[in-house]
């Protein structure tokens, strides 16, 4: 006997993501899912964002890593509530892992929650966690061909930050070609050339983020 199913395999994850969303809404949290390959600058961007917004916006951070709490320790230096999720081998955060960490955060006292996903350009794109926006960091030493290699990630991103632009004189990276490839398939994506080392472009990113938060 054949049974028609036609159901999304990740439907269960999407349902939990929806519950996370309701929890975030009840606390008026604006939630950013930060995704990138390892070493692109996820933690650096979160640190720079915290430095710019400290005293203006109440923030919290979730750090997703396969193992270790190095990133969470770095963030806690900034006096921002942070919780570490160790995925124990899983290459992405899913809605359930995220849900399990939320109890350890003072959500009622957070306006902006930055969630650092596991360093990976494939899997995190599949798993919703209840976020408002998805931000992708692509750094110049990685090369400008990444949109073609990881199309889903670039298709799903609300913003793409080109990090390490201070290295442009030394690496092969065509900013215009890169932006054109993304804009072709994803017109809504905002593109920000930034450097977490020199601070270039970070103000534009932060201003855009504040604008989105103000609209809610």
């Amino acid at each position, binding site marked *: *006997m054949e049974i028609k*199913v036609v*159901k999304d395999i*990740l439907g*269960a994850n999407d349902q939990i993501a929806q519950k996370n969303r309701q929890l975030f809404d009840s606390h008026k949290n604006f939630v950013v899912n930060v995704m990138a390959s390892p070493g692109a600058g996820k933690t650096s961007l979160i640190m720079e964002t915290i430095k710019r917004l400290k005293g203006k916006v109440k923030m919290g951070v979730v750090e997703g890593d396969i193992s270790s709490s190095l990133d969470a320790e770095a963030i806690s230096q900034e006096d921002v509530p942070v919780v570490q999720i160790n995925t124990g081998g899983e290459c992405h955060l899913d809605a359930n892992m995220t849900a399990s960490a939320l109890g350890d955060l003072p959500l009622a006292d957070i306006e902006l929650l930055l969630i650092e996903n596991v360093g990976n350009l494939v899997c995190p794109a*599949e*798993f919703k966690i209840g976020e408002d926006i998805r931000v992708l960091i692509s750094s110049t030493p990685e090369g400008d061909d990444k949109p*073609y290699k990881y199309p889903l990630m670039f298709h799903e991103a609300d913003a793409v930050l080109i990090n390490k632009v201070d290295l442009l004189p030394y690496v092969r990276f065509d900013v215009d070609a890169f932006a054109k490839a993304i804009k072709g*398939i994803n017109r809504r994506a905002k593109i920000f050339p930034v450097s977490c080392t020199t601070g270039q472009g970070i103000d534009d990113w932060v201003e855009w983020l504040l604008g989105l938060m103000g609209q809610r």
Partner: protein
Amino acid sequence: MHELSITQSMLDLVLRQAEEAGAEKVEKINLVLGEMTGVVGRCVQFYFDFLSKGTPAEGAALNFKEIPTTARCRNCGKDFELGEFDWTCPHCQSNNIEITGGKELYVESIEVE
């Protein structure tokens, strides 16, 4: 690597559907995988053989329908398959395109006894 959690979710879904239908054994699972998802059928099969042991789905055949990444040109309206390193419309060379297929990841049907 995401195939492990995807296969577990797929198995949970299939077992629930089979139970609702009062089936004792799942013989075949028809899956639809879009190219953009990067889900590798061979990996799903590997994890499935392991995860399904001792369940009514043990030994079920997996059938994969793979969907290529397709797009529609917003300029000339024509549909085409997305090239590997060329994301422009092959008809009018516009790069203003909309992804129309390739994100699928679902169980289409199961065959049970």
